């Protein structure tokens, strides 16, 4: 035996922790609102303590029954939905759904919306009284309802008005979810940050439509719906990139993430975290797989801290 012993390389783990407008997450992976129910739906299949956060179905002041069926239609590498924000309402959420979420050691982000400006304000007030809700995600971008949602998200002045009101009523981290159904997403992104958004989620679904050619009828009862899935990923990556150039708050990238490379693409484009949407429906193991994959990628690329990837695009 020679006197020189080879020291095994010190095992190391990259830091996956990120900060979203004051909310610290153990890793940047979370579900997109509306694809993960209230968390408990997937408790048997997903290790909830492993993901960065749980994002709830969009909550409103009163329960909402949503749109008539058919509400979903499969499309090439994706799906259309027009669920219409069906939800149990904020009070029922706090009474019936929170107790389960309390038992999980993962921050809860409550997604919410209003039918009117006043309702947005009231839901924000109610959420600020719930200690278990770590952050709120304000939906001003749902394409499937007449009131609320997208009406506020396509006009920078309306967006500014609703965000300012919510900001007054809600002091914890406030994320604003933006719509891609607009000519220049950076206009609303800037308005949102000026009005007090701590972070931005990009993007909600793209408005789409599909027709059954035999019956000549739309495949969705709502006629149009929101497109999600891998089909929209390049559009989403482009918009995250544009928004990252325009504002300095953290961005949550959303749009067709299935594989770990997809999530990394969003980080490089400028996202601090990512949300997994319709892929949860297809493979409930997706988010756990992404967390493992991000760690493996960092080790492979000798990246000590995942934040090194954020906005690291080389042109």
């Amino acid at each position, binding site marked *: 035996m020679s006197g020189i012993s080879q020291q095994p390389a010190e095992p190391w783990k990259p830091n996956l922790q990120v900060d979203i407008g004051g909310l610290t997450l153990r890793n940047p992976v979370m579900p997109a609102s509306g694809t993960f129910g209230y968390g408990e739906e997937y408790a048997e299949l997903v290790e909830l303590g492993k993901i960065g956060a749980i994002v709830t179905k969009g909550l409103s002041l009163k329960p909402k029954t*949503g749109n008539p069926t058919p509400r979903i239609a499969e499309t090439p590498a994706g799906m259309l939905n027009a669920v219409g924000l069906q939800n149990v309402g904020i009070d029922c959420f706090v009474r019936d759904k929170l107790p389960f979420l309390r038992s999980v050691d993962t921050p809860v982000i409550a997604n919410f919306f209003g039918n009117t400006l006043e309702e947005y304000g009231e839901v924000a007030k109610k959420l600020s009284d719930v200690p278990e809700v770590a952050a709120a995600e304000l939906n001003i971008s749902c394409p499937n309802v007449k009131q609320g949602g997208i009406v506020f998200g396509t006009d920078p002045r309306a967006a500014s008005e609703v965000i300012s009101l919510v900001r007054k009523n809600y002091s914890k981290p406030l994320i604003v979810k933006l719509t891609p159904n607009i000519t220049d997403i950076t206009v609303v992104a800037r308005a949102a940050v000026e009005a007090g958004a701590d972070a931005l989620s990009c993007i909600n679904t793209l408005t789409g439509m599909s027709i059954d050619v035999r019956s000549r009828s739309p495949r969705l009862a709502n006629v149009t719906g929101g497109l999600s899935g891998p089909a929209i990923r390049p559009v989403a990556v482009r918009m995250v990139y544009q928004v990252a150039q325009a504002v300095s708050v953290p961005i949550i990238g959303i749009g067709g993430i299935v594989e770990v490379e997809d999530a990394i693409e969003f980080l490089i484009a400028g996202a601090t975290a990512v949300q997994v949407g319709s892929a949860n429906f297809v493979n409930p193991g997706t988010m756990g797989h992404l967390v493992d994959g991000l760690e493996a990628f960092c080790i492979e690329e000798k990246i000590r801290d995942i934040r090194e990837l954020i906005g690291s695009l080389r042109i």
Partner: protein
Amino acid sequence: MKDIQTTVVENQEISSGYFRMKILAPEFGRMVKPGQFVMVKVRQLNDPFLRRPFCVFRIGFLPPESDGLPPREYLELVFKVVGRGTEILATLKTGDRIAILGPLGNGFDLDSIGEDLLLVAGGIGVAPLYMLGEACAKKKKVRLLLGGRTRDDILAVTDFERLGIETYVSTDDGTLGEKGLVTEVLAQTLADGAPSAVAVCGPMAMISVVQTICRKQQVPLQVSLEALMACGVGACLGCMVKGAGHSEAEPRLLTVCKNGPVFRDVDIDWAQFA
């Protein structure tokens, strides 16, 4: 509930456009209740994107291998080629990879069935009824009314007969069994004496007629519904049906995937299907 990557044991066309597929499914035997379903990913690509729901037709065991390992469990699906997903499913061969998530949904309520069960199936609607028949055949009187447009739509008759279930076949064109609608056979059967329970699966138009007949005769009915769905676990809210007494003021919305796919007819608002 499990999400597994597994393999196809066998895939056979049993009638024009209808297939029976055996899929290796360890431990599913003790998990699956009659009437439950699985979500199947027909291939590991993004297109087609979504899983498809299929009722579990039957659970079985492969003959033991010479290696002395215990017999391997499989689940069997019966499906009809209706679109792109099932077209791909039809091409799968022994040894091909497939992903299944399940068992999902509630299944039939066996406790309320009584001593005399009548199964009513329209075409591929036979799929969820075999396991129910199997669970009941030993202790109860079980009969099956099996209807289809033509003889090609009549599936799995010998499987039911092997359980000792009396099977009455009818086709709209008379190419097999009695000529006429299965609902006419049902009306006749009930007129001769009501069973303690009816379980039905098939096209919605047929289910609606079965419901009307059973309501009139006051026979307890369980229905297995089909719906478009993305997740199968109650998250996507794609497969909502209105429950009995639903109104905007007092919503009673049910998911076919989780509150169903089996419902007591009295729990459903039938006007929505009219």
